[in-house]
Every structure is written in structure tokens, then in C-alpha cells.
């Protein structure tokens, strides 16, 4: 609002917002802090907030005991792999829908989105069977393909909305300048759409990284990404809060950082452009 706001109101807003913000963020903060405590400090009563002997031992411990790095690598391969694969398939499709629209374009787009709504549990067994048949169970390739398929509609959709913002005349100019379809997409469309493609990639890496139905049900020790690896910590025995916190911190830190960068695109991607 253009009007000056009283200082007092601004102070109240600030305090209120910060208190609520910190409250919501607190579980993450607490997990982060706990990851630097010893197991004994982690469950101390009363709880210790900041003044304890900070230690990195949990992080080395997690790595040594359960080969954290392997699962982290699995996560990276599956999340990034499925996203890149999806983007490669989606760019041509989004190009078609954005620049050569036909009467059916809208229906195809909506149909694609509707496949995203299919409840995974409804097709769990068939996929399970197919995976056994194709020996894809507990394999990174299998999971990459599944995650690519479940995110493909969102990738197509997001790229479509970004491509729509590029004027058709520029692509026609490229055609007049003698560009083939391949060079039109490679030299003109893609560089112009880089910001859009980047945010699409970012959001989909996040979604794939956090996917926790197929990753839990289709992997065992070998291909388990971090979602499944963390779930193996669910046994409540023993002193393990600090180590759980260390593992959790490592699992969410990269995605948290990416997420902060992509907040704006997030809305567009997750509401299918219905909220701007």
C-alpha cells in the first residue's frame, strides 16, 4: 500500500511474523543443532539449546556405519537423472504445444496433468510385477524411469507455460533465417528459455528427491535413495538422536537450499499456472 504505515504497526507485524516463522522453522533448526551434539546431550533434560560442545562426530559416524554417501549418490542420480530425462522428452512436446497449437492441444495438456493425479497405490502391484519381470527392482534405472514418468506432466506443463511467453515471431524469424527445426530449438528457443528450464529442473529435482512412495516400495539396500535410507532409522531403540539428526540434516540441506532459490517458480509449477 502506498500509504505510510505507522512504525508501531510495523514493529508488531515484525515480531509476530518472526515468532511464527521461527516456530514453524524450529523442528528443522532443532534437528540441525542436535546433529552437532553428543548422543547424551541430545536427550539431556532439560534440553540444551546452543551451549554445548559442538562435535562433527555424528556426521562421520553416519557415513562410516551406513555408507551415507552411497545413498546420497543414489538420490542425486535418481533425482537429477529423472529430471534431465524428463526435460529432454518434454522440450519437444512443449515446443509443439506452445508454438504449433491445435484444437486438441488443450485436451492433451489436461490429460497429461490428470495422469499425475493417478494414485500410486492403485497401480503399486502391476508396477511391482513389471519391475520383477524386467529385473528393475532395487535398481537406480527403474526408479529413475518411474520418477521421470510421474514428474513428466509437471515438466511438460511448466515448460509449456514458459515457452508460451516467447513470441512466435522470433521462431519464425529463425525459420526465415534458414534455421532447421533442430537449430531453431537449439540456438533460439532453448537459450531464450534458459530461466524457465532452470526453474523447471530445480522444482523437479526437489520433487524427485523427496518422493517417498515408489522409492520406499521399489528399493532395498542397493538402490535406496535417502528417503528409504532415512526410513531405516525408524527403530526407536538406543541413543541415536544425534546421528538421526546428522543424517536428516544432510538429506534435507541440499534441497532446502535449492527450494529457497525456486520459491517463485514453485507456485507456478505446483498450481499448474492457475495461481499467478
Amino acid at each position, binding site marked *: 500500500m502506498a500509504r505510510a504505515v505507522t512504525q508501531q504497526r510495523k514493529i508488531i507485524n515484525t515480531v509476530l511474523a518472526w515468532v511464527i516463522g521461527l516456530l514453524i522453522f524450529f523442528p528443522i533448526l532443532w534437528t540441525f543443532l542436535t546433529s552437532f551434539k553428543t548422543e547424551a546431550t541430545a536427550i539431556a533434560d532439560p534440553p540444551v539449546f546452543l551451549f554445548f560442545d559442538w562435535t562433527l562426530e555424528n556426521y562421520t559416524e553416519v557415513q562410516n556405519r551406513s555408507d551415507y554417501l552411497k545413498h546420497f549418490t543414489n538420490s542425486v542420480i535418481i533425482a537429477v537423472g529423472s529430471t534431465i530425462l524428463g526435460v529432454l522428452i518434454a522440450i519437444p512436446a512443449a515446443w509443439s504445444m506452445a508454438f504449433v497449437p491445435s484444437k486438441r492441444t488443450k485436451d492433451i495438456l489436461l490429460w497429461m496433468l490428470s495422469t499425475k493425479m493417478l494414485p500410486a497405490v492403485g497401480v503399486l502391484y502391476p508396477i511391482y510385477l513389471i519391475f520383477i519381470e524386467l529385473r528393475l527392482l532395487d535398481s537406480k534405472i527403474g526408479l529413475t524411469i518411474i520418477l521421470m514418468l510421474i514428474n513428466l506432466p509437471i515438466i511438460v506443463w511448466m515448460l509449456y507455460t514458459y515457452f508460451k511467453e516467447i*513470441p512466435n515471431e522470433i521462431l*519464425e*524469424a529463425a525459420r*526465415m*533465417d*534458414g534455421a532447421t527445426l533442430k537449430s531453431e530449438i537449439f540456438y533460439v528457443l532453448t537459450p*531464450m528459455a534458459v530461466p524457465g528450464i532452470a526453474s523447471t529442473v530445480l522444482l523437479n529435482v526437489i520433487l524427485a528427491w523427496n518422493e517417498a512412495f515408489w522409492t520406499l516400495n521399489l528399493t532395498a539396500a542397493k538402490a535406496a535413495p535417502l528417503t528409504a535410507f532415512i526410513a531405516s532409522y525408524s527403530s526407536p531403540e538406543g541413543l541415536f538422536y544425534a546421528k538421526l539428526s546428522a543424517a536428516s540434516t544432510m538429506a534435507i540441506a541440499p534441497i532446502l537450499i535449492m527450494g529457497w532459490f525456486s520459491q517463485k517458480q514453485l507456485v507456478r509449477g505446483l498450481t499448474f499456472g492457475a495461481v499467478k
Partner: protein
Amino acid sequence: MGGITLSQVSKRFGTTEVIRPLDLEINDGEFVVFVGPSGCGKSTLLRLIAGLEDVSGGAILIDGNDVSNTPPAKRGLAMVFQSYALYPHMSVRKNIAFPLKMAGMNKAEIAKRVDHAAHILSLTDYLDRRPGQLSGGQRQRVAIGRSIVREPQAFLFDEPLSNLDAALRGNMRLEISELHQNLKTTMIYVTHDQVEAMTMAYKIVVLQNGVIEQVGTPLELYRNPANLFVAGFIGSPSMNFATGLAAEKYDATTIGFRPEHLKLFAEGGDWHGTVGVSERLGSDTFLHVNIDGIGQVTVRSDGDIDIRYGDTVSVTPDPARIHRFDASGVALQ
């Protein structure tokens, strides 16, 4: 070199016929302007020639070769778009070089041609800028630069000046005409502005509702409009028309007379009327006169004429410059 022939070319979008079958001959080196009101099909016709749209019927020949099914890239034409359609992620240099790069030309030759084009268009100082850092006129010149480096068979311009302000538009009009004098390459230019058409064209093609109304030089169209539409479209301010008794005197359903072909008298002329609003341009004055039995008529007169709102005047048309039209709107000779 760059003669273009349209033979029975038509275009339909779904069931609407945007271009009715038409024939048109564009000679090599001609500057042809397609002009008409918006929605008349002039841009579609240009896009058909460019290959950005398929013809629904008929054939397009460039240099005698049928290119109706040739993709735009292979037709040897260059196009300047209304929005300039510059590649925003490339520098001016790369924009101009793009068609040459697509043609697979070697780097040294590309550099030579880009420098030459930049020199002609006074863009040399801006070669390393991005399109976003240029003014409207400069962008326009980059778009032209991008089209001339290829040495195309013909240039296509799609309302290239409509995004510029009035002063700049006048300058660019001259520049493009100058360019045509130097290159002597066929140019097809689409505009809705009849002033651009009159000042630039060697040959004007007037279109309405997907039909060619008339083809001719600017003066031919001005002197001998083939029908009511062309008569009303060409010329500024536009031609006055009269029907009824006034027209019957000349054996026509409608007569037309241009503002500049009317003489004003205090009294004793053919028609009588009252002066309404007058627009004073300094060089001329356009008077809107309400004539009994005819209606509102525009009269061009001297810049310093002494006349006021509500004065009664008498008007006489130049009989040699009266255009006569029959009931279907076609000019009578």
C-alpha cells in the same frame, strides 16, 4: 533474380476463406506494398509468400520455380517482422550473423558481411550490445541488417514501422527507400498506413477481405481508383462521396471528389453549405462543410483562409477530377 508470381493462391483457416484465389505478378527489383485495413489478409499473403503458412490452393513461384511446398528457410527470402523478432540472448553482431551461420558460411566471410551491413546501417558502434540495450529505431536497423546480409532474392517487411513513433517512422521510411535504391532487390512491404504505401511503393496492391481490389502505381491509384473502396482508402484526407441528385447529374450512382479538388466561393458555386469545424495545419486548412443535399464534405483550402464556424459558403468541384461509380461501386470511365 527475384520475380515472384502468385497464381490462383488461396488460404483458408478452417472454413473461413482469408485469401480468395488471386493472381499477382511482382517483377524483379520492384518495391511492392500490400495495403489494406486490418484483417484484409495482407499479412497472411506475406506469410504465404514467406512459407510460414501453407497455401490452401494455387502456387507461388519465385524466379519461375514453384516453391509452394518449400520450407521458409529454402525460399531465399528475408523477412523483417513487426516486433523485429531479434534474438534477445545474442549480441547485435550475432543477430546479424545468425542467418549466415545457419547457411554454414565460414567465419571470415561472416565477419566481413556483418561489418559491411553494420556500416551501411550505422550500427558499427553497437555490434556488441544486446537488443534490449537498443532504441526502437536501432532494433529496426538490426532486423534489417539481419535480412540484408544473406543477400536474399527478396525482402519481406511485415508492418515494420508500426512500433515506432511518428518522427522515427518518417526517417525509417526514407532509409528503407534508400536501401531499395542501393540494393535494387525485390521488396514486399505490408502496411495498413496508406501514407507509407503512397510514399514508398513502386507498385501498390490494395486488399480488402482477402481480395485484391486494385494494383497500380501510387499515382494510378490516386487518379483512377478502380472502385469505391480504393477511392476511399487512398488519399488523405479521404475522398468525399455523394449520391442521389448530385450524382445523377453526372450519370452515376455515386460520385467522388477529393478535398483538394474543390473550390470555395463566397457565393455562386454549384453547392451551398455551412462551415463546421476547420482543421488548420498551417500549410493547408481542412474545412468540414455541411452541404445541402449531400452532407458532410471535406474541403482543402489555403492555410490562411479567413473563415469561421457557421459561415455559409459555396463549393464547386473540378469537373475533370470527378470520379463516377456505378451501383456496384465500380468506377465508370
